[in-house]
């Protein structure tokens, strides 16, 4: 049994250290950025063997720009270091709020005597995925918004939180009802224990491991949602749109958050792959670190006894 516990551990250490690394990068990243936030490398002349030549951005990865530049000459690495905090912390905070609010309500509904199961009304609504809901809710405010990036991030965060709460409520309520059936809970109830006592002494200690795994999985879901919105130019912290003759022509992220960089970079997939590869790899690494953490936690908390298969 102790061996099994050890097996789960390297996943937890790896996941935790990667997550901490990302958080550290999000906080101190801008100080290490090679360029200023708004520094553009515009059209310039370079000396080649055949004489001077005029070149224009996007510049491919080079000594000056390790990861290349985008169409407007912004340095990719600098953008990613400045944008990290929006992606990382929004996902963390939104997931945390979802679990806190949904968990609280779920616990309350579960512990209520004779409480009916609060079923999610799916049915036909299964046809409308969550990201479409956020899409229409944000469509009116995200483009060339008068609000500041921070205000927009807060609004987007609130929308994403509200959308995720119902799912958590039903999960936690179901778990609570299950746990309530344990003999020791019924016994303490029979001896006159109050709701608060039951929650703090019996239900929550059993539930907290589930809550941690749930939190990590929610972070991954939120990252997924942020990424999907980024594809449709609904960037965290707002989008700057430049209108041309045929309608919207150029989109720019105001915060350089990673999902936005992916959304912008995907348009250059055929020609300038360096504009999409770094943010995509960073995004995947971020998801991977939360995933491996959640796997480790799951294995650690897994029941220590289980039946063996016969076939």
């Amino acid at each position: 049994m102790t061996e099994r516990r050890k097996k789960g551990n390297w996943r937890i250490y790896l996941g935790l250290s990667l997550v901490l690394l990302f958080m550290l990068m999000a906080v101190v990243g801008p100080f290490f950025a090679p360029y200023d936030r708004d520094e553009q490398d515009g059209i310039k002349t370079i000396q080649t063997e055949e004489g001077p030549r005029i070149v224009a951005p996007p510049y491919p990865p080079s000594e000056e720009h390790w990861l290349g530049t985008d169409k407007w000459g912004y340095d990719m690495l600098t953008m990613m270091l400045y944008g990290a905090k929006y992606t990382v912390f929004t996902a963390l905070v939104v997931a945390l709020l979802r679990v806190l609010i949904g968990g609280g309500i779920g616990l309350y509904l579960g512990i209520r005597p004779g409480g009916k199961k609060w079923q999610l009304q799916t049915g036909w609504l299964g046809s409308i995925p969550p990201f479409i809901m956020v899409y229409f809710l944000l469509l009116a405010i995200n483009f060339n918004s008068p609000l500041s990036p921070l205000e927009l991030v807060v609004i987007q965060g609130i929308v994403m939180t509200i959308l995720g709460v119902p799912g958590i409520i039903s999960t936690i309520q179901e778990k609570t009802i299950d746990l309530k059936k344990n003999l020791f809970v019924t016994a303490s109830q029979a001896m006159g224990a109050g709701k608060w006592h039951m929650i703090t002494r019996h239900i929550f200690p059993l539930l907290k491991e589930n809550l941690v795994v749930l939190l990590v999985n929610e972070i991954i879901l939120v990252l997924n949602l942020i990424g999907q919105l980024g594809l449709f130019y609904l960037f965290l912290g707002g989008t700057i749109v430049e209108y041309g003759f045929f309608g919207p022509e150029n989109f720019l992220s105001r915060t350089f958050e990673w999902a936005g960089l992916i959304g912008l970079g995907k348009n250059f997939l055929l020609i300038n792959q360096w504009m999409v590869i770094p943010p995509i790899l960073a995004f995947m690494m971020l998801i991977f670190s939360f995933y491996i953490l959640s796997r480790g936690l799951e294995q650690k908390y897994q029941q220590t006894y289980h039946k063996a298969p016969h076939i």
Partner: protein
Amino acid sequence: MYRGKVISVLVLIMFVILLSGFPLMLDTSQGALKFTVTPFVEAVKSYTDGLTTGESFTYKIKDRERSFFEDMTGFFTLSLTYLFIGGVIATIVGILAGGWMAGVRQNGIKDVVGFLGTIPDFILIILLQLLVILIYKSTGIRVAKVASTFNEPAVLLPLLTISLIPAIYLINSLSQRTYQIMTEDYVLTARARGLNKLYIYVQHIFRNLLPFLKADLYKVTSIMMGNLFIVEYLYNLPGMTRLLFTYGHQFNLIVNTLFVLAVMYVVFLWGMKLFVSGLERVFIYD
């Protein structure tokens, strides 16, 4: 029995109208965020008025007026075809690979399959496209179409993506179920009687897996509906979701498209149920 269905349809109608109208309720043109209901109410009123005259079933591309139903049929067929093919592939792969995964003891393989399940759809698509492009650049061989062109939709990559994501979900969930069923006493009895493994798999394990598969279908179909938006958008497929994103925010168009998507979801769900019942008929007999 019908009351629940009627309520769920009413909820859907209200929800779709509110969702489509929400962008009309927020006004940022004055330099600050303002909440107004008037444009929304007007849009709903003109929509309901237009239901009888047929005006609600038109939309605009630039300045030309188009008929919604005429344009929609082609998109509808294409989306539904991709969904069905993807769903069938995902179910078959899920059952087979899930059965195999249940016997796997190494945690490493489970880590990898689990991680594949958490990779977001759009990242998977962009990576596949990058792979095809890089193969083309280095060898000159065009493995698959990266995106649809004017009248030739991409086939291989979209089908791969749309079936891969639900397949991984099914592999993960069905392998746990299969493992659970393998621990049951009736499997031990069957083994003790000397029945062969294949027979036990089909007649004992698969039979008891089916109820779980049927329950999972709801989850699978809604995962696939979510993927459909991303798949059609990134591969530029001429499917239903094109109507949502390409022609600007036209209230009539959005409401109609969301309703048709709901109908498509139900048709898809019933089709998948039919497919699973078919599997039951073919493999399970007494």
